């Protein structure tokens, strides 16, 4: 009888623990597709991807990195476009997750950049940067300490800000 009660108690606790985990995690995963730098907070309605005039386009940024001796790879547009941006591409530079987004205005840029950093902070990256010039944001997150001294990240940002 005691043993049966113990088993029930344990099962109840397991359930409670699962609820705790799920409850706490809910806040962290209210953004869909967590795990990639392109994962974004739930957008009310997906906006069509569209480049923004008057700011550096993603392809220009990637070409600048190549010209600087870096190796951007796997860049592809994100759909739906996350963080309130008008256009985003996600890939890797020197194996470090990198995101380039173009925003329509400074207000959405500010909010998008903050949301990006908040999400990466929650996910627990080793190093994260979100830097903008005009209406383009470059975000870099080093999840696995590929760049412990930030030399690659510095080069990525430095090349971008010289555009």
């Amino acid at each position, binding site marked *: 009888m005691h043993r049966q009660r113990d088993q029930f108690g*344990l099962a109840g606790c397991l359930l409670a623990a699962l609820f705790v985990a799920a409850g706490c995690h809910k806040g962290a995963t209210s953004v869909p597709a967590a795990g990639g730098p392109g994962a974004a907070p739930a957008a009310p309605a997906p906006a069509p991807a569209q480049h923004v005039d008057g700011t550096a386009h993603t392809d220009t940024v990637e070409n600048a990195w190549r010209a600087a001796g870096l190796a951007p790879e796997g860049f592809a547009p994100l759909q739906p476009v996350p963080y309130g941006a008008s256009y985003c591409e996600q890939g890797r530079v020197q194996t470090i997750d990198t995101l380039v987004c173009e925003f329509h205005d400074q207000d959405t840029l500010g909010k998008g950049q903050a949301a990006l950093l908040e999400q990466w902070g929650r996910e627990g990256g080793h190093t994260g940067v979100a830097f903008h010039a005009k209406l383009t944001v470059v975000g870099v997150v080093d999840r696995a300490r590929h760049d412990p001294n930030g030399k690659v990240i510095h080069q990525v940002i430095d090349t971008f800000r010289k555009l």
Partner: protein
Amino acid sequence: MRRALAACLFLLVLAGAATAHAEVVQYMSRHPIPKRVGHGFCDIDVPHFHDYPPSDPRLYRQVDGQYYFVGDPTPFDYDGPRYSFYGPHPIADASVQLGGPAYCYIRGPHFHWYAPPPQAQFEMRGGAYWYVGAYDPAYYNDQPRYVAINDVYAPMVYARPVIDVQFAPATFHGEIFVGGVWRAGPGGPIYGGPGWRGGPPPGVERREMVMREHREQEFHHEQEHRNWEQRQHEQRERGHGPVAHGGPERGGWHGGPPAERGGWHGGPPHGGPPHGGAPAGNAWHGNGGGGQHPAGHANGFHR
């Protein structure tokens, strides 16, 4: 039942820990990497975050939740451009906004990764930037809190810039390290030698002391120069070509310039940066261009 309760508690703690947010520490610019995390210096010079806090808060200021490294990056394997400073000065890093007057309290010669902007009140003398402006009240208010940065650097052995303090601007208000003791700039009390912690000795006029030290240094310079010329003469007699102008046995090079007053002056024998003292009355003024010590080329001589 007790065992089940313990297991339950353990699972709850585990579940809570798994869902706790990772540590996010904001940095404003470059900074040393704590030894427990890695080694060396983080090169990222824009706001960023890491999952670790600073190694020593005495080396930082916190502005809007972001840490800004205010120290000399040299002993932390920093390998970027460096600029020499002498004594306390306003933090003149044009790439950051510190939200008000903020000062570097490092005594004596040290490096930063930034050069002061042209409009800032610095003078380049004897191989370093000296702050010659007035101090904001914030300097004195914050001094007790931030002067502890010197305790961090005191035990560190690394190549500081070699500065010719005889060219200290008359308007410099900080302390000067001359002949093994700390002395104030024009108009202040003498500070004791290495390990000094107390107040100034009473009744000593600093300017006089500094000037006397200068005269002693000049005598030394003349003596070294005479010795150098003698050696040059002997080598010419023996048919050898001209040699690099090395330093004396102890400390950086303090000799006078060679006859042509130009050319390269060799470094000190113990690995410190080479040091060339400009001829008296010919100190270089101004901000542009001077003071930079490219990584790996610690040539402190500027004209």
